[in-house]
């Protein structure tokens, strides 16, 4: 079979090879330059972040043995040999997990409603006045960029310790994130129904209600469910700053070296996140068909 491949005569081949090398050379040069710049950035970053490979390698054993320790009970046996002892606090933890889910549910719902109200003003094609769009967009951007836990830190001082601060922090962050996604859906909506409704003399509000909303509602619900999933994860750490949920228990267990408690709480958080992921995935596929699952 090898004879089927024809080999070009020498001079012709040399010209082609030359052209190829030239084409590749400029690409390679660019690639090398980019790599050099990137490595320089990395080295500067490594100095800035106080990277110390010696501590890393001397203590890396700690990282592995940490997982060994958190999976060992106080009497030295593996945790899974005595589930009852491992999950000794399951009543309290289950309650806290419930609170975590509730925090993210209430937060997501408040955030989704606020985002729903605001997003029509933020979308380019439906906003009634340009300056209002600018203001709302900057507001949403602010709510989205400041991390939820920073809001939680401030709210804990304003509203006192407890889940209220966590809910409000999650609500604000979700408003920002969902507001942007919602307004993008609206911007992709078909404007012909809006023209149709407006031609009957309807107000702006009716245009939104009868022409835009039916097109975008499914997308909204899908994004809100996705956000709920993310917020469960976020709510699990709200307790670190005293804003309610299972995080409080976890941070206490980690700081006080209650090793087997750390693993028990981590395992229950991971299990909860799995269940919520699967549940919302199932709901989205039920509600909107497979193609809406992103």
């Amino acid at each position, binding site marked *: 079979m090898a004879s089927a491949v024809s080999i070009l005569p020498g001079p012709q081949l040399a010209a082609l090879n030359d052209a190829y090398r030239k084409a590749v050379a400029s690409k390679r040069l660019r690639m090398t330059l980019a790599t050099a710049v990137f490595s320089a950035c990395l080295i500067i970053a490594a100095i*800035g*972040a106080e990277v110390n490979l010696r501590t890393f390698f001397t*203590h890396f054993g700690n990282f592995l043995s940490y997982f060994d320790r958190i999976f060992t009970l106080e009497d030295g046996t593996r945790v899974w040999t005595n589930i009852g002892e491992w999950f000794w606090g399951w009543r309290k933890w289950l309650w806290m997990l419930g609170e975590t889910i509730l925090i993210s*549910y209430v937060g997501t719902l408040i955030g989704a409603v606020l985002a729903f109200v605001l997003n029509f003003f933020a979308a380019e094609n439906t906003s009634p006045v340009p300056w209002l769009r600018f203001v709302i967009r900057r507001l949403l951007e602010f709510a989205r960029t400041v991390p939820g836990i*920073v809001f939680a*830190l401030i709210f804990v*001082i*304003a*509203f006192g310790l407890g889940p*209220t601060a966590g809910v409000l922090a999650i609500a604000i962050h979700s408003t920002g994130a969902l507001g942007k996604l919602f307004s993008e859906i609206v911007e992709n909506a078909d404007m012909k129904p809006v023209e149709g409704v407006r031609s009957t003399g309807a107000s702006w509000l009716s245009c939104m209600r009868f022409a835009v909303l039916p097109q975008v509602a499914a997308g909204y619900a899908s994004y809100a469910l996705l956000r709920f999933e993310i917020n469960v994860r976020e709510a699990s750490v709200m307790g670190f700053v005293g804003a309610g949920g299972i995080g409080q228990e976890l941070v206490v267990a980690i700081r006080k070296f209650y090793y087997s408690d750390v693993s028990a709480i981590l395992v229950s958080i991971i299990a909860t996140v799995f269940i919520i992921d699967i549940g919302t995935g199932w709901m989205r596929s039920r509600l909107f068909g497979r193609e809406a699952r992103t």
Partner: protein
Amino acid sequence: MSQLPKPDSEQLRAKYPDVFDRPASSRLAMPAMMIGAFAIFIFGLVDLEFSPAKLISGLSQLGWITLMMIPPDPGSSLPLYLTALGETLSIALLGTTIAAVLALPVSLLAARNIVPSGFLRFPVRRLLDSIRGVDTLIWALVWINVVGLGPFAGVLAIAVSDFGAFGKLFSEAIEAADKKQVEGIRASGGNALHEIRFGLMPQVLPVIAGQVLYFIESNTRSATIIGIVGAGGIGLQLAEQIRVLEWQKVSFLILMILVAVAAIDWISGKLRFAIIGKRAVV
């Protein structure tokens, strides 16, 4: 103007019974779901100790705080804050890079078209899922136990939690790759590694580069908060100033974060544009 013929409603009703008389179950499903959702919401408000009095006093408190934040003022600690910001950016860049480098080989194991047998793929995927299920802040706490307080713990925390995310995203990108190039390499006598290197990587790398840039951007945000638990960067300063109620410094730090995130946003947008062209920029 011609008159439209009047529709014969009786005939239509007979023809499309399910449009006119929808079964009660489908008519009630939506309101029932809404009432259910609302009921859980009310239960949540009660259970999470919401009360009008608390909200009003909290909001007025918040109003005071906002007033005290104006104008933002770093006091005399501007150099300290700039160093902290540099530390945050370093954490984001380094953590994301380490995560991407480690995740690339693992993502091959999690991709269906590389490893057809579920034996290896399934545990790798579950491992990645579990890593992703744990928040960056929790990883930061764990790493602080291992390498001590400081930004290095932050780098490792971001690296580990992104490792889970990248593993999943990369393996999805690999699964979406075109099979024809790979078959071409195989037909010309390449082995499995050649197939990956010359058939798969040229397709996948631009996608991956885009995702990594996007994550550097979003990790700038994550890196600001891991300082709250003691893993270095600007979050440490922020949490401290909030605790001592230095609101002018707090608002200045928040502004710094916003500006830094916007700047990284802009740069990575440009870079993504350069690498993968306009169509793939989300």
